[in-house]
C-alpha cells in the first residue's frame, strides 16, 4: 500500500504527529497524506484541532513529535517552500489603512507567482471595488478579500482554514466551485470545515476529525451515504408544502429552529430553500456528534 502511495507525488504527508493545542486537548499520533491534485477536507467542529493541524503544516505552530513533509521536505528547514503554498488562516485579520488594490498588491509582492488581475477581477465580480478601503468592508467582504489574496498566488498547494466562514450560502457554493476549478487546473487543495455539506460537495476525500484525533478518512462515494442535516431559522411559518423537496427524509422543529434531515440531493434542497420568499436560511453548525457517530 505504502509503495503504491509513494508512486504518486504526495504534497502533504503527516506521520505520528502529536501536539497539545489547548489546556485539555491534544492531537495525538496523527498520520495521513494528501495526494496531488485532490481536494482533502478536514471535517471537524470548532475546537477539534483542525486549525492547529493546518498551522503545523506551515510551521506556524510547532509539533511536539512526529514528522511533516511538504513536497517531501521539512518546511521548518526550507521556508522557501511556502512560495508554493497558499494558506488562509482563520485567525488572519486584514490590516486597515489600505485600499483593496493596495492590499492585494502589497501581500502579493511577498510571493513569486501572483495573478493580481485575477484577484481584482474576482473581487469586482463579487461587487468589491478595488479602491474601497479595507476598514469599511463588512465581515463577509473581508473574507472574500482574504480569499482573493490567498488564491491569487498561483501555488501548487492550497491550504484553507474554514474558507467559507462568514459567507452567505450562495457565496459559499461559489467558493467551493472555485476550489474545484483550481483542483482541475492542477492544484492540491486541503481545507478544514465544520459543515459536512461542504465536504460532500467538493472533497475527494474527507478526514473526520474529533478532539484531536482523525477517526477515519472516507472517499466521496462513502461520504454521500451519510445522512445530511440542515438547521435553519425561518422568518415565517414553515408549512409542509415548503419542504416537499426530493431528498428530504424528515424535519423537526426545536423552538425557532428547523432541522431538515436529508439523504441526497443536497444542492437542490439548499437551492430551493434559499429561493423561498422571506426565508432567512441560516445554516448552523451541526452537532459533530451526529456525523462522527456515523463514521465510527
Amino acid at each position: 500500500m505504502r509503495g503504491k502511495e509513494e508512486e504518486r507525488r504526495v504534497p502533504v504527508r503527516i506521520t505520528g504527529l502529536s501536539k497539545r493545542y489547548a489546556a485539555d486537548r491534544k492531537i495525538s499520533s496523527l498520520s495521513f497524506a494528501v495526494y496531488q491534485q485532490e481536494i482533502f477536507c478536514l471535517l471537524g467542529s470548532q475546537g477539534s484541532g483542525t486549525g492547529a493541524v493546518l498551522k503545523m503544516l506551515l510551521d506556524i505552530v510547532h509539533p511536539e513529535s512526529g514528522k511533516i513533509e511538504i513536497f517531501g521536505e521539512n518546511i521548518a528547514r526550507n521556508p522557501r517552500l511556502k512560495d508554493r503554498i497558499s494558506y488562509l488562516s482563520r485567525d488572519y485579520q486584514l490590516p486597515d489603512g489600505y485600499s483593496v488594490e493596495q492590499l492585494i498588491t502589497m501581500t502579493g509582492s511577498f510571493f513569486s507567482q501572483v495573478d493580481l488581475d485575477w484577484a481584482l477581477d474576482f473581487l469586482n465580480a463579487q461587487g468589491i471595488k478595488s479602491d474601497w478601503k479595507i476598514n469599511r468592508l463588512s465581515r463577509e467582504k473581508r473574507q472574500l478579500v482574504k480569499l482573493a489574496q490567498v488564491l491569487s498566488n498561483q501555488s501548487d498547494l492550497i491550504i484553507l482554514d474554514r474558507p467559507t466562514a462568514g459567507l452567505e450560502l450562495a457565496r459559499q457554493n461559489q467558493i467551493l466551485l472555485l476550489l474545484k476549478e483550481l483542483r482541475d487546473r492542477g492544484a492540491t487543495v486541503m481545507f478544514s470545515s465544520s459543515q459536512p455539506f461542504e465536504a460532500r460537495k467538493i472533497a475527494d476525500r474527507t478526514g473526520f476529525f474529533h478532539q484531536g484525533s482523525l477517526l477515519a478518512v472516507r472517499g466521496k462515494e462513502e461520504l454521500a451515504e451519510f445522512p445530511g442535516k440542515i438547521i435553519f431559522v425561518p422568518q415565517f411559518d414553515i408549512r409542509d408544502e415548503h419542504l416537499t423537496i426530493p431528498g428530504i427524509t424528515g424535519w423537526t422543529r426545536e423552538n425557532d429552529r428547523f432541522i431538515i434531515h436529508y439523504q441526497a440531493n443536497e444542492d437542490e434542497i439548499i437551492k430551493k430553500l434559499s429561493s423561498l420568499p422571506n426565508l432567512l436560511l441560516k445554516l448552523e453548525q451541526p452537532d459533530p456528534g451526529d456525523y462522527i457517530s456515523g463514521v465510527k
Partner: protein
Amino acid sequence: MNVSFLRKEFKANCWKIYLILAFLIISAVLLVLRFPRFPPLLEQQDLVRLGVENQEKLEIYEFALYLANHWINRLFYAGSILAVLLGVDALAREIEEGTLPFLLSTPQSRQRIFFGKTLINLSLLGLVIIISTLWLGGVVILQNYDIYFLRFLLLGFWFFIFAALPYSLGLLLSFFISDRVKAGIIAVAIFFLFNFLTPGSLAWISEYYLSAYFPAIEGSLPYLKIAVILAAAALMQLLSWRFFSKREF
C-alpha cells in the same frame, strides 16, 4: 529583505515617523531662531581667560556648541520615544491585529521576519535622523551661521547607535506585556529613569562635536560606553528573538 516588507513597515509606522519628524523639524527652526543674534563681544579664549568656563555661558557666544547640545537633547527625547514605539509595535501590533499569520505564511523564515523588522525599523529611525539633520543644516545656512555640518551628521550617527537600546527595550517588553500602550509607557519610563540615574551617559555624544580629533575618530570616543550600549541592545534582541522563535500564533 524585500521592498514590500519595507513598504509594509513604513505604512504601518508612518504616523509615528511623521509626528516625530514634524517635532524635530519645528525644533530645528526654533533652536536656530532662538539663538541670541548679537555678535560675540568677546572671543571664546577671552572668556576662558576671564574665568567664564561654564559651558552654559560659553553657549551664548558659541552658536555651534549651543546647537549641538540642544539638538542632541531634542534627538534624545524624540528619537528615544520613536525608537520605543517602533520596538513595541514591531511584533506586538502584528499579533494584536491578527496580521502575523499572513506574514508567517510567506516564504520568509521567522529569523528573517524578526531581524528584518529590526533592520527596517532602525533604518526608518536613521532616516528620520538624517532628514531632520539635513533640515537643520538648511535652516542654519539660511540664517548665515557657521557650523561643521558633517559633525552634526556624525552626532546623528552616534545617537542612532544609542537608539538601538530603547528600540530593543520596547521590543523585549512587548513580549511580556500584552497591552502595547502599557508596554510603551513602561519602556519609556525605564529608559528615561536609567538615563536620569546615570547622568552624563549621553554627554559623550554632544562632546563629540568639540572633539579635537575630528575628523579622525580615534582616541576621541568612549569605546567602552559604545560597547556596553551595543552589547545591551544585542542581548535584548537575542532574548526577544528567543521568545518570538518559540512562540506559537
